[in-house]
């Protein structure tokens, strides 16, 4: 049985760009190069690409196939997609993660996104010119410390923009935004990468050539590949970068008809993300930062493995060394690039939440979009007010729940739904031959891989749970638990309604 879609994608290219845009995020430009520097340089690419093949690609196939399968019965969010694949009642509640994660990540991600808008504005206005590096850092600290109302203004602006785009639907909103944003992101990325790599010592105050930074990032330390922490970090990076374990891929794929391809779409979007991350992401912040600050300082600054410090505190200062015009252009390009990387991701977080309300409670698109925007604003307030709450959201939702959800979905797909049926779902209508090895990888290797990653992080989870906490941390945890319970309640109510019908 095929149910008529309420909405459709405009074009295949639009779908791929939206899917790639949901995967490409701030982490492609900030987190990946920092992780590479901290985890063996060029050798990091070995565990990274291994994780991409053994975990990333299989999960892409699984999530696309689950989405298209769920779409056949008119479901665009994971609770009832899971319910359609596994008859036991608890699968629907494991599917709650596919809405919970999106809502909770959007709560702090939209705030991050708003920083990029604000920094683009300050770059264009020349506010970083003449400032020392310490002054730019102080500006950042004052900003996140809410020294002025400006962060709240940009945050609300960003929320309104996201909500407005979502309210315009898939074709006229999400797809259009991706068709504009992705080409601009690629253009800005290429220009900045060329600038980073061609940075010359002695010009505009640079101390080293940009190539020195590139050399440092790619110089392999092969001893690092025997370190389990490096593998865990590589697996984590693959999760973040492909937006796996969130439920947003399933949502986008649920608008694809059952006879249409998903295998080639999955590969095209996934590899596009890899291109942006590996080729462009490695050529911007590290070469520019090393060019001015030297290797040792950059290694020190990337110790947390995020690259946020360099991106927001150091680069504006370094761009300012290039003169007023080039500084403004580079600043707008860099923060514009981060903004265009961020917004398709936050839009992808909105669609499953909206789809759930539209499918199960017969809400209209506009009502669902504005409710999502309002919920994200309410949930985001603790993240705006407290860095500790922000950190809690990021840890429990942006790290742990992704892995739990991914374990659940791959077990459901390969072992409960069944790999034979699952393989048919993946290959049905495929425009490429999917290597049969992935059938076995999906069934055995990926679940094992995910379990090892999860078990490996249990000591850290235990340590996080047992350390003394502040009221802000407690409040954030209670809020997350309350959110999960509330979504579960909605799933229960929707399920009851379906049974009654």
């Amino acid at each position: 049985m095929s149910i008529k879609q309420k909405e459709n994608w405009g074009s295949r290219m639009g779908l791929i760009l939206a899917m790639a845009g949901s995967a490409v995020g701030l982490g492609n430009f900030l987190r990946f190069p920092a992780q590479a520097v901290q985890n063996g340089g060029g050798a990091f690419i070995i565990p990274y690409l291994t994780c991409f093949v053994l975990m990333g690609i299989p999960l892409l196939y699984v999530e696309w196939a689950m989405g298209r399968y769920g779409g056949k019965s008119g479901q665009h969010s994971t609770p009832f997609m899971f319910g359609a694949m596994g008859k036991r009642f608890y699968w629907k509640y494991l599917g709650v993660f596919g809405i919970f994660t999106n809502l909770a990540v959007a709560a702090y991600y939209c705030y991050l996104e708003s920083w990029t808008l604000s920094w683009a504005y300050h770059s264009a206005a020349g506010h970083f010119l003449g400032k020392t590096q310490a002054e730019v850092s102080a500006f950042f600290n004052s900003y996140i410390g809410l020294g002025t109302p400006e962060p709240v203004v940009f945050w609300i602006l960003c929320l309104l923009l996201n909500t407005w785009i979502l309210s315009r639907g898939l074709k006229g909103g999400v797809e259009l935004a991706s068709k504009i944003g992705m080409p601009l992101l690629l253009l800005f990325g290429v220009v900045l990468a060329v600038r980073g790599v061609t940075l010359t010592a002695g010009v505009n105050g640079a101390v080293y050539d940009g190539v020195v930074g590139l050399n440092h990032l790619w110089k392999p330390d092969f001893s690092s590949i025997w370190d389990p922490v490096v593998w865990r970090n590589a697996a984590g990076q693959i999760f973040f970068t492909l937006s796996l374990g969130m439920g947003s891929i399933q949502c986008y794929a649920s608008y694809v008809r059952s006879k249409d391809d998903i295998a080639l779409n999955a590969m095209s979007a996934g590899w596009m993300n890899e291109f942006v991350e590996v080729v462009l992401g490695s050529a911007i912040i590290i070469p520019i930062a090393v060019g001015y600050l030297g290797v040792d300082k950059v290694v020190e600054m990337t110790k947390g493995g995020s690259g946020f410090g360099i991106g927001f505190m150091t680069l504006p200062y370094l761009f300012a060394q290039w003169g007023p015009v080039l500084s403004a252009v580079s600043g707008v390009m860099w923060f514009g690039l981060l903004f265009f990387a961020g917004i398709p991701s936050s839009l992808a977080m909105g669609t499953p939440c909206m789809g759930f309300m539209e499918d199960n409670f017969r809400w209209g698109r506009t009502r669902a979009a504005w409710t999502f925007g309002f919920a994200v604003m309410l949930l985001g307030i603790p993240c705006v007010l407290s860095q500790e709450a922000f950190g809690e959201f990021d840890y429990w939702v942006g790290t742990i729940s992704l892995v739990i959800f991914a374990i659940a979905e791959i077990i459901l797909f390969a072992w409960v739904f069944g790999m034979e049926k699952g393989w048919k779902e993946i290959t049905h209508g495929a425009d490429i031959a999917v290597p049969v090895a992935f059938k076995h990888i999906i069934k055995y290797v990926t679940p094992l891989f995910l379990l090892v990653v999860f078990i490996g992080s249990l000591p850290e989870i235990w340590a996080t749970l047992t350390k003394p906490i502040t009221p802000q941390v407690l409040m954030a945890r209670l809020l997350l638990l309350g959110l999960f319970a509330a979504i579960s309640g909605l799933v229960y109510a929707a399920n009851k309604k379906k049974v009654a019908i």
Partner: protein
Amino acid sequence: MSTSALLMLVVTEVTVTAFTLYFFWKVLTVPPKAEPDSFEDNDDVER
């Protein structure tokens, strides 16, 4: 750049770019499926 760094960079970036271009080219050249398909923009195109 050192030889090992250059080798890692070239091998990785060529591999990633080649796969990206290959799949992108496939998307552009593969014939569309018969209507009704998942996409609205080509709904009025007769095949």
